[in-house]
């Protein structure tokens, strides 16, 4: 009797899904408030430490209340997409403002989210630099060197990676500031640059792994924090950092996801978390992981590792919406200059 089988099947399936759902509930031992921070790729080490510091700080200030912070990492665009599709993020700490704008456009948080916290909701900034093999054998010193025919460049895919979009804008900004530059000359430079890129990884950490662990390419265009991590902590002297003459002020912002914290009842904790990022303690942790602190006193203490450099910011491109539409939207500049090879 197929009908009977169908009903039993549906029942069994329903029970199994229910059992699977129960697993999502925390066991009593962890029955604390959980915060999910959906973050971009190179913040793994940063938030592993900040999460612990925040938990201790929150418990101290709130009579021992336990808040458990979990962080999910991945390419910024892909992570934003997950949150849009329902990943239960209380807080997003993404690679660029555009990805959070997209969440706001779908009603997950208020449109003015970037005004709710200091420094455009950017507790730590970074910039884009070059990671080269030790001794800089290809003599790569500035953006102009990346298009030489003997240079192979590693950078992730701007369609999926926030870091890659900053890389793109940094290169474009340099090209557009050269003597006699025009939009056409900048576009020609970008075309020549991407002709030197053998493969596009989906996220910044994937690109770093291609360069560092798989030995691909002569230069990695990377977040400064990612490059310093490779040079100072994991590279064993195999890599050097090169700061170009000018780069982009990369601002990876943070925000509380209003709709999710309302559903989870975690608004106070989530807001506590993003505010905690601006405290001297968290700013120190940021600097330790090579993110540029927004707190000037902390920044001054780390100026030896994170020296001031010449930058332009996203407003010089007319803001993220304009930059996204011009460069990265379907049929935009990136699509025009990039042909997979």
């Amino acid at each position, binding site marked *: 009797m197929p009908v009977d089988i169908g009903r039993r099947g549906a029942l069994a399936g329903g029970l199994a899904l229910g059992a699977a759902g129960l697993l999502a509930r925390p066991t009593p031992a962890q029955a604390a408030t959980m915060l999910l921070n959906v973050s971009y*790729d190179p913040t793994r080490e940063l938030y592993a430490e900040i999460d612990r510091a925040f938990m201790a700080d929150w418990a101290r200030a709130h009579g021992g209340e336990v808040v458990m912070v979990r962080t999910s990492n991945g390419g910024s665009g892909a992570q934003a997409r997950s949150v849009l599709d329902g990943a*239960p993020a209380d807080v997003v700490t993404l690679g660029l403002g555009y990805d959070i704008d997209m969440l706001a456009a779908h009603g997950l948080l208020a449109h003015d989210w970037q005004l709710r916290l200091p420094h455009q909701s950017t507790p730590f900034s970074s910039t884009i630099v070059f990671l080269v093999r030790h001794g800089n054998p290809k003599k790569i010193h500035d953006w102009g060197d990346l298009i030489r025919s003997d240079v192979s460049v590693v950078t992730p895919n701007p369609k999926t990676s926030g870091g890659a979009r900053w890389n793109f804008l940094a290169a474009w900004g340099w090209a557009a500031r050269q003597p006699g530059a025009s939009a056409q000359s900048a576009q020609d430079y970008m075309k020549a640059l991407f002709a030197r890129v053998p493969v596009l990884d989906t996220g910044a950490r994937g690109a770093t792994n291609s360069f560092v662990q798989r030995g691909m390419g002569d230069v990695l265009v990377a977040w400064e924090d990612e490059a310093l991590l490779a040079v100072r902590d*994991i590279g064993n002297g195999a890599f050097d950092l090169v700061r170009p003459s000018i780069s982009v002020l990369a601002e990876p912002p943070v925000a509380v996801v209003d709709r999710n914290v309302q559903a989870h009842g975690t608004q106070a904790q989530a807001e506590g978390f993003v505010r905690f990022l601006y405290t001297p303690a968290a700013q120190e942790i940021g600097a330790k992981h090579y993110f540029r602190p927004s707190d000037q006193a902390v920044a001054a203490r780390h100026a030896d590792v994170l020296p001031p450099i010449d930058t332009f910011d996203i407003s010089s491109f007319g803001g993220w919406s304009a930059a996204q539409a011009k460069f990265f939207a379907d049929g935009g500049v990136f699509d025009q200059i990039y042909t997979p090879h």
Partner: protein
Amino acid sequence: MSRVDAAAGKGSLNTKDGVSRAVVAVLAWVLALGLLVAPVVLVFAEALRHGGAAALASFSDPDAWSAIRLTLVMTVLAVAINTAFGILAAWLVTKYRFSGRGVLLAMIELPLSISPVVAGLAWVLLFGLQGWFGPTLARWHVDIVFAPPGILLATLFVTFPYVTRTLTPLLEAQGAQAEEAASVLGAGMWSTLWRVTLPGAASALASGVLLTTARALGEFGAVSVVSGHIPGLTETMPLHIETLYNGYQSVAAFSMAALLALFAILIVALRGLAGGRRPIEDGLA
């Protein structure tokens, strides 16, 4: 002549044939060792690079335990559901003739040809917040994708065909005489299935169950899409391995990979015990 000689002698009509057979055998061994054994050995070598203690210490992380537990629970559920379904489906399509039988058979095989990533995306399109049922489920506070139920659905999808595919050829070959006899003697449908059909197919069934288990344990693509990669909550072992590797935790990543490889080796061994190399199962999976 011993049995081995007889078997070897069957096809070797001349020495030339014997030589080419030896070449093929050597080639097969080189390929197996180079492509299959070497990577597994390397995984264990990398895991033990800083000694056994360091490898074991990596399992003290609660997120590692959570990944192991989630993987095992998902595997048990997926295997139970797909075994029950697989038996019924194989039984239906071999012992009964009904309209749409061919379509059903083709549909059962679909997961073998669809990319797991597409399967995962399909679940997101159905149950994601921007998907068909997502907004309604969100109102009821039911989590499917980015939660264990979504991982179960993704695992079910990719492991769907194995039991049916291992059972169908065998049941087909058995024919329906035994069942007809049982029916004549007064056995009902269920007791015929339990007492007549299944006992004759036990080793094929075991093989299908083990294939299902292996695939469920190791699935990455489909699960990756629906998981949300939340360490300690929705990361299965394969996903946690990627997270560890990307976090420069090489020993921990390879230790977890070694554990997964041990599970796989165990399954291969069990499959060997369960009756192993029946010609009828060749070409499966």
